[in-house]
């Protein structure tokens, strides 16, 4: 995941998704996370129906309890995905936040 070349290739996709809006159609709260996400848990992950078509599975950020509902409007934002080790490249990607 932290290969600089892979991150560089992935940036193009991130750019295309940025700023798009949509609404939550389903979600969960991950309480037992993968190893690299241990410092963030628990956190919600939402499945979002994007305006203009398509869907995305993304972590929900800047949320409050009232935002965890079907139909909640969200926007794609760029965020740090995980903390790399001290010499690693910082991976950025798409997360969603309530609007």
């Amino acid at each position: 995941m932290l290969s600089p070349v892979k991150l560089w290739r992935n940036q193009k996709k991130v750019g295309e998704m940025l700023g798009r809006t949509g609404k939550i159609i389903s979600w969960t709260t991950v309480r037992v996370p993968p190893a690299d996400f241990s410092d963030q848990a628990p956190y919600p992950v939402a499945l979002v129906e994007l305006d203009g078509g398509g869907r995305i599975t993304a972590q929900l950020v800047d949320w409050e309890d009232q935002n965890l509902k079907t139909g909640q409007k969200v926007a794609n934002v760029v965020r740090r995905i995980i903390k790399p080790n001290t010499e690693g490249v910082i991976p950025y990607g798409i997360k969603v936040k309530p609007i």
Partner: protein
Amino acid sequence: MNVSIIGAANTKFGELWDVSPRALAREVVFGALKDAGIEVRQIQALFVGNMLSGMLGGQEHLGAFFAEELGFTNAAAFKIEGACASGGLAIHTAVNGILSGQYETVAVLGVEKMTDHKPEDVATALMGAGSSQERAAGCTFPGLYAILARMHMQEFGTTEEDMAAVAVKNHYHASLNPNAQFHRPITIEAVLKSHKVADPLKLLDCSPISDGASALVLSVRRQASGVKIVASSVATDTLGLDQRASLTELQATKEAALRAYKQAGIEAKDIDVAEAHDCFTIAEILALEDLGFYIKGSAARAIQAGEVTLGKAKKLVVNSSGGLKGCGHPIGATGVKQVVELVAQLRGTAGARQVAGARMGLAHNVGGSGATAVVHILKR
């Protein structure tokens, strides 16, 4: 389809800290050979179903690895990987090897060693079966099935109690299976009170992390008491949930089932005993609908009413082994174990969990959140 299952064996499933993958393979493959009454030298090819040996154990090249251990030195040997459907895919590949005329008698080994590693590392490795966006979202497999569960709840009014009933049934069945990881029946209340893993899924909605192995010997030769494979089909869908046409069904399961029923020349109602892929409780509900046993939205209530429970079912019994939930889920072994269970049921040797008079069995093995589905139909 002229493929017979002439040998079948399982190890105990569970937290087997004192047993190595090599020892699991020896026990189960030599068990299946003994059951078949044949010698090592008669095996022409070995098909190994496994997912995580590289990511967790640092060992790839499993075909040669296990061929060496088993003394299959001149046999062809392969590793087949398709996430949690690796075992089912290994059987499918072995069947094709026989149908092609290349081999007459082959062994299938499903094996996984998971409990040597930290749960976070296992969760990370399992997410290798998902999409890159799902990994970047920090999602887990319980998380992906939780998203599917909430869709099903919203669409059909499925409840957390409905899902809990799947775990209760499968733990009851597991309590009758000496090789199962869990032998303790549980209650709906215990499931609902277990701690949350990925809301709305709780610990007892989830299949466990397990070690174990299962093996089959397939052959063009028939046995008097033999069980035949009458259908073997595979279908695929997108890796990630966000690319799917529907989120209340697994399209790959529907497609694989349709092809299998057509190959076998039967309908869903002809099945007496089924092993359905219940990695999470919601998955069994989805499976019973997508396999055509129940119409969409009606399987949960049927399971809760005991319609597919041993001793209560009028016909079809689902997951007599205890399923992934109760018997355990060593990833690569699971799809093979399902078929080993059906062989016992169709031979009439399943003991306390025997489905009386079972003649037709179906095994349903899913990889990822539904990107791969494998269906086998067996007939006595």
